[in-house]
């Protein structure tokens, strides 16, 4: 063998060795989890904490890197995940129905939720119908009794808060107007306390400390059962449909994710969500997780699509 050929063989052997060392079980490299909001927000921190917990349930040395992709109420993040390569190295968090409604409205968004490879549900956040802490209103009947247009505050049109406000008032037949454009739920809670408007639908995770301090008062809760007899829930209001309205946070991957990769991610995610350390952290921040697996998540997406489609006309 000439010098040249033996050199070539050595190279080929080296390449083969390298290829072999790189092949092997998934995951072999860091996984990116896309957060559709700015760093620092409640959702962002939640997912980052989850990412940390997730690392403990993946093979040694595999990191879960959070990447923020904020924009347009979660749509850009959804877009990023949908368009990523289905190799299991990019997954992302989705906020429903926030990212669901633009799809129902047939807006040009670049993703299809029914094709997302769903992995798990993190949990949901019900909405609290709130008024100012020193308000004279103590029940929804009082609100109806005002016999005028009720003003609400919410984030942008298309956001879950806006959708929830619209549907709530349509179903109960209360004349309403929404002051949109507040940046985040903390912003419109502030507006409520300040008196910019009459009432607001506030996600429970944001509302909790303000209810506790007396700055706002809860009149009703949608999306969950009420523990407090003074606070009505969907059933007490006589409209069980309203129990469907809540923010649901899910984790998913790009379409056509291979089944074995999907299974590995689902197992790891559920283990991370049920991890005791993670649960302790949740407890300390007042968050709640209700982990559900991939199939149930996909089913929930389908169910939510159906539900919100009925209300499509109110969602503009």
């Amino acid at each position, binding site marked *: 063998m000439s010098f040249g050929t033996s050199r070539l063989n050595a190279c080929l052997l080296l390449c083969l060795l390298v290829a072999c060392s790189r092949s092997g079980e998934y995951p072999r490299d860091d996984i990116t989890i896309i957060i559709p909001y*700015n*760093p*620092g*927000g*409640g959702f*962002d*921190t939640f997912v*980052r*904490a989850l*990412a*940390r917990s997730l690392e403990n349930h993946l093979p040694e040395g595999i990191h879960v890197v*959070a*990447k*923020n992709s*904020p*924009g*347009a109420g979660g749509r*850009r993040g959804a*877009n990023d995940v949908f368009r990523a390569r289905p190799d299991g190295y990019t997954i992302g968090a989705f906020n429903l129905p926030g990212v669901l409604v633009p799809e129902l409205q047939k807006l*040009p968004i670049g993703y299809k939720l029914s094709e997302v490879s769903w992995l798990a549900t993190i949990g949901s956040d019900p909405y609290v119908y709130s008024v100012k802490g020193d308000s004279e209103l103590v029940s929804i009947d009082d609100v109806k009794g005002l016999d005028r247009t009720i*003003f609400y505050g919410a*984030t*942008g*049109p*298309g956001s879950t808060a806006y959708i929830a406000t619209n549907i709530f008032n349509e179903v109960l037949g209360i004349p309403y*107007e929404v*002051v*949109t*454009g*507040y*940046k*985040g739920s*903390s*912003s419109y*809670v*502030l*507006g409520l*306390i*300040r008196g*910019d*408007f009459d009432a607001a639908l506030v996600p429970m995770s944001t509302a909790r*400390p*303000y209810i*506790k*301090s007396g*700055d706002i008062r809860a009149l009703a809760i949608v999306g969950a059962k009420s523990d407090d007899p003074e606070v009505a829930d969907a059933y007490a209001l006589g409209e069980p449909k309203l129990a469907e309205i809540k923010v649901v946070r899910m984790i998913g991957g790009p379409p056509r994710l291979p089944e074995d990769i999907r299974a590995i991610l689902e197992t790891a995610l559920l283990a991370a969500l049920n991890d005791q350390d993670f649960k302790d*952290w949740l407890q*300390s*921040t*007042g968050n709640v997780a209700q982990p559900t697996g991939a199939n149930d998540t996909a089913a929930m997406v389908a169910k939510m699509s159906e539900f919100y489609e009925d209300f499509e006309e109110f969602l503009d």
Partner: protein
Amino acid sequence: MIELLGQAATDLLSLQTILFLFLGVIVGLVFGVIPGLGGTTALALLLPLTFGMQVIDAFAMAGGIMGAVAMGGSISAILLNAPGTAPSAATCLDGYPLAQQGRAAEAIGAVATASPLGGLFGVLTLLLVLPLAREIVLLFGPPEFFLLAVFGIVTVAMSDSQNLLRGLIAAGVGLMLAFVGYDDVHGGVRFTFGSNYLWDGIPLIPSLVGLFGMAEMIGLSIKGGTVAADTAAVRLDGVVSGVRATLRHWKVVIRGSLTGTLIGAIPGVGGTVATFIAYSTTKKADRDPDSFGTGRIEGVVAPESANNAKDSGALLPTLAFGIPGSAEMAVFLGILVLHGMQPGPAMFVDHVQDIYGLILALTFAAVLASLIGLLTVRWLAAITLVKGQILAPVVIAVSLVGVYAINLRPGDIVLAAILGVLGHLMIRFDFPRLPLVIALILGETAERGFQQSMMIGQGDWRIFLHSPTSITMLLLIIMSLSWSIVPILRKRMTSS
């Protein structure tokens, strides 16, 4: 309160915590100096690392970063006209001309003194005002935000009396650019031409790096020479006169710090525009406002005092309501939540000691960063002696990398370059850049405030008179307008 402060100080004094503080200061300085990176990026990188750290250590590091970033940003603002952070852009205005006159060391000395003084003043104000945090934050609703934004834009647009018309045009263009992107109020996407990149509007940091830093560097590579126009006149030992200058102008320091803390306390954009407004108000109140921009040392002392003070102010809405007072605070919020601290009414009850620890960390960091700045001033000022033909391409290259590093979006590189060329043209044709920047920052707040006020007031314009705060803001706007217009009218009348 004193005993709580004392307690917090003892907590901070553990070796481990001090090391974290020091680390934060170094990171803050480096991130502050490199154009594009800044406190927000540093904190965002830091955020996941703090998981599992003790609260006081995380706060020491975060405080170190936030306190030092201002100093770092000002250094590159002075030496290269490339603001390391958004608020530092105000320091460019007189800082770079000083460097061009060979007085970079003096400018850095002034900045290094004004910075911790401003920070200290801000902290004292914060401690006094902390119990009223909620009430202060509640003062600002949509009508007040609208009026504040108008005040900011008007003040800055009309601050250059030689170029009033072009300043207004620049502000107009800035506003037009501010409307690019997703409209939170009505839910439409504007001027994005179908791409994802502009969904959130024109990003601020790449714009600033381009408009100020790269524009100046392009100019330098055309003109040749060095940053310091006359290398013989460079005084590398001018730092002491800089320190003395700040102490001499203590009134400017106080005015700047006060402005910084108050405006920094306004949720949302307060922290970003505080330095610009401090600069503009100092310029207006001066006997010779037209000399600002040519190398007045007060033009550097004012924004610098505001720069650190604003961080204290920005803590108010962040802690009281979880509404970030500035971009850095937004990330800092995440660190809070990560450690199980929910901002809101309970914050001041359950975690007061940790908050005091943070406040102390901020103060120490500012002092530490200044000392480091003062120690290295000779080497830093020597940058103004480097040949522009070598310096300019290097700074442009580093800026492009820094800008990319913020969000890993290639579009940011292109944007910075385009705005670099635009900025260069603006310099050439005497269009002031600051009004464009301020309008770009405040445009969204102004529009949102206006639209929401109209919804709340149901179309009634009297909503803008509905509170003492809004009436005060209206008076401030009128004052600002007359301050600018009256001297011009007077000149016209005497000359005709």
